[in-house]
């Protein structure tokens, strides 16, 4: 696997703030890579370093093997889809999309033709003469996308591209982006704080927290085998089991994660450390989430909805396979 983007010991400090702190990252060519993390975790800074808007305080960044220290954004074959689209308000849609071609002095007819083709690709054929101000958020998003891919960049960076769209549109765009990435074969790097988005679209995910990369892996790895309490908590809604509890089940005094859907709930008393009281019940449609108080530890379980779901105050016993309890290697 050739690395499309590789970061070695990259730091970016703003005064005393370590936005990125000595991170290592490799993104493969043709990969759909997601950088996931809460706001202020350094993921956007990381993106801006790759795009060239920021320079690293220390460390090395390579794009397809070439060192990019001191290379300005306009000389990098990397394009960005901005969070708020950054469409030029004084140009119409076609001029916006054809902007990179105009800069390369492609003649006017070829420009219009290519731009129209790019607009077709994002399902906005025939919108060329409109102004960005006349479009909806979803349409602007597509124009920004068309503009970013028209130069056929080596790497496409997407900064929270779906953040401003409503749920339905977001789901639709997720599928379209993924399909587009397959068609174009370009390396996509997506920055998002939405774990659902990262898991559903990316081939691999890097979880950022406080300027560090906490874990890199496939969505399945990240979801099922989190390596730390932060990852388990941030990606999905895992139960984080304290060492004392874990010791009583598997004999090792370690932190572990336990997915709510891996737990099955039966009414009545059972083994003492697994019996508790239902303290909250929320209906989620096909499933229902129960919060069970287990001797002071609150545990969430997701069970199929139905008539036999225990109500608040009911005594229940939790059951799960021993290997569902995942010991987190980065925790003591």
């Amino acid at each position, binding site marked *: 696997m050739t690395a499309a983007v590789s970061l070695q010991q990259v730091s970016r400090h703003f005064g005393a703030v370590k936005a990125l702190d000595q991170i290592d990252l490799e993104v493969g060519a043709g990969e759909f890579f997601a950088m996931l993390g809460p706001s202020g975790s350094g993921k956007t800074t990381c993106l801006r370093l790759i795009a060239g808007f920021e320079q690293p305080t220390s460390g090395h960044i390579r794009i397809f093997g070439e060192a990019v220290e001191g290379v300005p954004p306009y000389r990098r074959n990397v*394009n*960005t889809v901005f969070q708020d689209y950054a469409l030029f308000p004084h140009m119409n849609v076609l001029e916006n999309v054809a902007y990179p071609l105009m*800069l390369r002095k492609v003649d006017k007819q070829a420009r219009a033709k290519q731009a129209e083709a790019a607009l077709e690709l994002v399902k906005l054929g025939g919108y060329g003469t409109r102004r960005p101000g006349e479009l909806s958020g979803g349409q602007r998003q597509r124009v920004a996308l068309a503009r970013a891919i028209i130069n056929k960049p080596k790497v496409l960076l997407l900064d929270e591209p779906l953040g401003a769209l409503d749920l339905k549109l977001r789901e639709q765009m997720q599928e379209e982006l993924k399909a587009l990435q397959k068609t174009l074969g370009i390396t996509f790097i997506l920055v998002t704080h939405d774990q659902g988005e990262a898991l559903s679209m990316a081939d691999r995910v890097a979880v950022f927290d406080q300027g560090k990369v906490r874990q890199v892996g496939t969505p399945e790895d990240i979801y099922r085998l989190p390596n730390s309490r932060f990852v388990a908590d941030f990606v999905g809604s895992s139960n984080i089991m304290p060492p004392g509890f874990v010791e009583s089940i598997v004999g090792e005094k370690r932190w572990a994660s336990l997915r709510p859907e891996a737990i099955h709930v039966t009414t009545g008393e059972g083994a003492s450390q697994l019996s508790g009281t239902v303290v909250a019940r929320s209906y989620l449609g096909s499933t229902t989430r129960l919060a069970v108080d287990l001797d002071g530890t609150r545990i969430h379980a997701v069970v199929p909805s139905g008539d036999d779901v225990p109500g608040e105050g009911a005594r229940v016993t939790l059951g799960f396979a021993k290997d569902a309890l995942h010991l987190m290697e980065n925790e003591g």
Partner: protein
Amino acid sequence: MSTADATAGAVLANRRGWLGSLSDFFWRQPTLFVLLMLTPAALWLGIVYLGSLFALLLQSFFAIDEFSGIVDRSTLTLKTYAELLKPQNLDIIVRTVMMAASVTLASAVIAFPIAYVAARYARGKWKALFYLGVMLPLWSSYLVKIYAWKLILAKEGILNWVFAQLHLTFVLDALLGIPVIGGNSLSISFIGTFLVFVYVWLPYMILPIQAAVERVPSNLIEASSDLGAPPLQTFRHVIFPLALPGIIAGSIFTFSLTLGDYIIPQVIGSSRLFIGQAVYAHQGTAGNIPLAAAFTVVPIVIMGFYLWMAKRQGAFDAL
């Protein structure tokens, strides 16, 4: 007190006196409120300002009787406007327009970098310093500034002295040797007039450009760079078009202020007249109010034409 009363008081806060009632009334009648707000401004603008302008316009359609020197107010005529086309009057117009255009261009060129840096890089204390620096000259008397410049530009003035100290007097002499715009010394040449005009009107160019550049979102500049535009191209295709309304706004100030000014060319410059001086002379000593009015119409027409051209060129598209 019954329970019902207590509940009512809790939901609807009590009206506080007649002022409260008035607030409530205006809240229900927003149109009336807007009308009330507009009335003083409309009266001022409509009667005092536009009214006098129309009175002036009317004057320009009268003509003076050449023998008696009396203004004939009984007939409307274009005779006075024909007067404007006489070589000595046309000269004044061309001279003034050329001066206004060069002052505007120079102001824009000087103002843009200052405004750009202030809008995009200056923060906090530095921004305050910028505003202070730009506005400070506006707080001192216009006349004091102009006479100060007369001293600076005079033959015995500081500028000549600096050039002499640097052994560059020949540069100044060469500059003053240029026909028409040159002269005996800077203070009695068009170059001097031009320098003072640029100095006096520069803040009116800097502030609108600064406001316009500040409104250009920085991510547009990043996007342009990201899509392959080197800084100069980004300037040409993104920053300049988006800042253009600001430049136009600034140029309206510098252009029209230069067109109408009559003090600067009188204090600093050759004895050849500008429109403002011509207006002053005709309505004063010469008593030719119609010609003065016709001269005043010239800048208005020029500005109207200028704005129309600017609009046609798409200068306001980014607004």
